[in-house]
């Protein structure tokens, strides 16, 4: 019985789960949590303040990569129907999570929204649309169209995964052709302004799925082409210099939003070309910056880096392995954290405490889930083994 578990584990590690995937996804989740607390000054430490791309790019790219890894394996072993069923099962889990999250969020909002009841804010903002027409708001929420702030990444993730079974066989066979198609959709969406609508009317998805799919597909395509991956990430001085230059330019631009003298040094002609840098439509500059960042980081952190197995990296890795649950918890925690900072105390020590406690809670959940999953797997094997003995 022990042998079976070991064999299965062996198969998993044999497929070479790159620890860097879990590490950087875990890190992205931490950043997303911290960034979602507006009153938290510690969020200045996260990458969005030092470059054009941020944690969302990391999260979406790695999600595409791991989706290809996991479902590609199922496709090889058990065929397309099983892989599609697995993806759809995952979507269902995500959707259920989204709805649960939505209600937990609504409860928190209901508590906070009493602010709109003051004549000062009611005059300009109305009694917040959220509660004016609950029937519409709820049906629209089920359609993913009514999305309170902060829940944006999840619907994007659901839509991308829903489309994934359609792409999977083609991706497996001709990853680059699919990537080219994905790039064409990206360009078309940017050119003709495609996006999905939101409720109340007239709004668009904060993360445009037609543009953000490119990163997801790029991650998946690279997973299926190890040869190409090796070529792209090989060390070449000119590429390294170019990537470094892009990162420095990104740093300069982000700093110029904070320090006017830096902004003044950029010629008008350049700002005309650069701006606006759209996050909704995944601006090419953000893409460029993300790939430069990925290149540099992958060179700095080789696949077998020993510190990834150390105790310092362990909490981050745990979060990266349970990304869905940890992401959801992070969204709730960041809203709760903001409420604490607004209603109880907004001091620097309170901000620090909220950040540390929030991340600790995320790690605890991740550890618990990890333990539960391995224990459950062991139990199943035990049951299966005892059944065999009985027969």
């Amino acid at each position, binding site marked *: 019985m022990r042998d079976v578990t070991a064999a299965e584990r062996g198969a998993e590690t044999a497929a070479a789960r790159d620890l860097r995937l879990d590490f950087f996804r875990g890190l992205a989740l931490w950043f997303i949590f911290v960034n979602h607390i507006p009153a938290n000054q510690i969020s200045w430490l996260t990458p969005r303040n030092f470059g054009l791309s941020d*944690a969302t790019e990391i999260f979406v790219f790695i999600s595409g990569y791991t989706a290809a890894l996991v479902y590609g394996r199922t496709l090889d072993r058990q065929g397309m129907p099983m892989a599609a069923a697995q993806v759809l099962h995952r979507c269902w889990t995500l959707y259920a999570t989204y709805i649960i999250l939505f209600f937990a969020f609504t409860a928190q909002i209901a508590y906070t929204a009493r602010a*709109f009841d003051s004549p000062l804010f009611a*005059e300009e903002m109305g009694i917040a649309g959220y509660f004016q027409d609950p029937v519409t708001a709820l049906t629209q929420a089920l359609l993913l169209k009514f999305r309170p702030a902060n829940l944006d*990444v999840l619907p994007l993730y659901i839509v991308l995964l829903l489309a994934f079974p359609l792409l999977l066989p083609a991706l497996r066979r001709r990853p680059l052709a699919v990537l080219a198609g994905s790039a064409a959709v990206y360009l078309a969406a940017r050119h003709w302004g495609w996006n999905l609508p939101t409720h109340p009317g007239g709004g*668009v998805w904060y993360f445009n799925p037609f543009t953000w799919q490119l990163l997801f597909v790029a991650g998946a395509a690279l997973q299926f082409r190890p040869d190409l991956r090796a070529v792209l990430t090989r060390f070449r001085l000119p590429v390294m210099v170019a990537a470094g230059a892009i990162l420095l330019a990104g740093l300069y631009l982000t700093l110029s939003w904070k320090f006017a003298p830096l902004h003044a040094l950029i010629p008008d002609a350049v700002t005309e070309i650069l701006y606006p840098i759209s996050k909704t439509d995944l601006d090419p500059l953000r893409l460029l910056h993300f790939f430069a960042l990925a290149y540099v980081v992958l060179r700095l952190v080789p696949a077998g880096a020993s510190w990834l197995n150390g105790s310092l990296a362990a909490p981050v890795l745990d979060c990266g392995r349970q990304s869905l649950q940890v992401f959801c918890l992070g969204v709730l925690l960041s809203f709760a954290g903001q409420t604490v900072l*607004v209603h109880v105390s907004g001091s620097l020590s309170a901000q620090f405490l909220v950040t540390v406690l929030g991340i600790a809670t995320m790690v605890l959940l991740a550890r618990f889930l990890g333990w539960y999953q391995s224990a459950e797997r062991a139990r199943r094997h035990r049951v299966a083994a005892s059944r065999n003995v009985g027969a």
Partner: protein
Amino acid sequence: MRGRGFRRLLTATAIALAALALPISGHASSVAVDPACSVPDTVLAPGEGLPRVSAQLAAGRPLSVLIVHSAKQASKPGIVGYPARLEEELKRRLSGRAQRTTVRTTVLSLPGEPAPAMVAPLAQAVDDQRPALVVWQTGTADAMRNLDPEGFGTALEAGIAEVHRRGADIVIMDMQYSMHTAQLIDFAPYVSYMSWLAQSSDVFHFPRYDIMRHWVEDGRVDFADEGDEAKRRSYDFVHRCIGQLLAESIATMIAPSAAIPPAIARSNGTSP
């Protein structure tokens, strides 16, 4: 994860504006702003000037101001918003000028409208009324409805261009701030777009969002108190102070050469 660091942008704008305004700030107005309302230069500093308004005043025409906003008209009696207060505040500040200046304000209320829907009525109203100055408050509905920030920016640019084409100056005003509303609505991309656009197109951006945040952080107003009396008090405080600060900014920006020296102004300042 969202937004582009509006705080940085606003600080940047404020610093830039402060640097530009240094030579002319400090005189212009005869009536001080209520100390409870005042905010430091890093939050609010007057812009470069209102050349079209100054030209009209120099030609002896009245100062006509059109306020376009997306709020409902105050319905309850006894409630006076900043649009209604602006005329009086401007009169008090301009009464000391060498030539007598008449101040006239009109209000165009487009409740719940996002910026793209405000441009046409705004242009029409400027056509009809021929004001010297337009105060355009917008962005609230756009942020509440998650409208595309780029569409918002395009509309903003279009509105500014329409007003300029008709020979009037324009001041743009952003949203209200409270920690509670800001927790539910993501204003950041819209505020930063306004301040960035103002910076690049030489239009004065009246940073109401940052002003109100300064008051909250400074403990001058507390929106968390849910008593009716407290709500009425904060309403009154915010609108009175916004009216004063807006009037002060406008008065300061009307070309200082047209204004009489502050010493004389002060002696005449109290007369209605």
